[in-house]
């Protein structure tokens, strides 16, 4: 199996006078440190990808479509936005002109592009929403007037890192995320799922640090409570 050297596009990008230049700049910054996910390590990872991808979008969609879609769906919460993000990602990648020595590197690169597209999508939606102050919301009122727990957190029958590997847990998690108000969900997704530093999250959402911390706090309270109700306190009932 020949290994291919990474080739760059032969057109000096600065000479292309179109908005596609911006896309290519973006691609150069795409994160390379994201772990490739969902790659069949045994068979596919090291198989070289020849320039075929330029001519064979079907293979791209075949190899990466599901993984990209899932990545987007978890973060955006609905099929329409997720598909749109994947489409924008693949279209941008088409102009990237990169080819890779292995499918796992290709997947990593595509995920990097997708991450940026998702952040763009979240940023757009956040800016369009009419800004309102943090409203106290009865659903999320975990504390009494004096500041004590209405219902103190109980011992969980299972570690969340074990639960995530169960097939039934994924939908529960996504459901709980969808129950959060969008502003809170965005904050926790960018901060915890995408692991962006706080100041970048603030920049993306156009909010101050104070606002961000408030939203994260409430999101954590709400998410924890929702998961407890729908998953983690089952163990004690079942005995």
């Amino acid at each position, binding site marked *: 199996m020949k290994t291919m050297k990474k080739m760059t596009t032969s057109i000096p990008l600065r000479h292309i006078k179109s908005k596609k230049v911006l896309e290519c700049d973006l691609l150069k910054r795409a994160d390379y440190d994201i772990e490739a996910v*969902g790659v069949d390590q045994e068979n596919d990872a090291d198989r070289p990808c020849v320039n075929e991808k330029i001519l064979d979008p079907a293979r791209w969609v075949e190899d990466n479509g599901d993984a990209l879609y899932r990545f987007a769906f978890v973060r955006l919460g609905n099929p329409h936005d997720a598909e749109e993000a994947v489409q924008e990602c693949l279209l941008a990648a088409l102009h990237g002109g990169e080819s890779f020595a292995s499918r796992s590197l290709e997947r990593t690169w595509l995920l990097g592009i997708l991450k940026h597209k998702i952040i763009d999508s979240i940023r757009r939606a956040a800016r369009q929403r009419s800004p309102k102050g943090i409203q106290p919301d009865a659903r999320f009122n975990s504390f009494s007037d004096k500041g004590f727990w209405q219902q103190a957190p109980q011992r969980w029958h299972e570690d969340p890192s074990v639960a995530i590997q169960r097939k039934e847990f994924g939908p529960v998690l996504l459901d709980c995320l969808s129950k959060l108000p969008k502003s809170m969900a965005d904050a926790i997704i960018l901060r915890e*799922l995408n692991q962006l530093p706080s100041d970048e999250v603030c920049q993306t959402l156009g909010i101050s640090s104070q606002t961000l911390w408030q939203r994260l706090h409430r999101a954590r309270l709400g998410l924890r409570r929702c998961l407890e109700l729908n998953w983690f306190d089952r163990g004690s009932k079942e005995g």
Partner: protein
Amino acid sequence: MKRFFQFLFMPCEGYTELISASMDTDLTRLDRCAVRIHATFCKGCRQYRKQIMQLRIMLRSVDEKMPCIESMQLDDQARSRLLNALNQEMSNDNRPVDDAD
């Protein structure tokens, strides 16, 4: 003086705010003390802190650990929409051939 009493008698709501803040920024020394003291007496809050930390670890591993779920896969229609968009873009892209060097 008031701050001192707030510090001594911090209720659970305050504790959870500080714990959440500590996940994103550094707490002052005073706040760190208040947190430690409160946790000594409050089992619910100890559970809370443990669970929040566990949730953070879990959320960071979602992409690798969550098994494939059907509702999170592209259906055939979505696949063909994507392919069409790509093919469309490629045919729009009929620029003159690359000038090598």
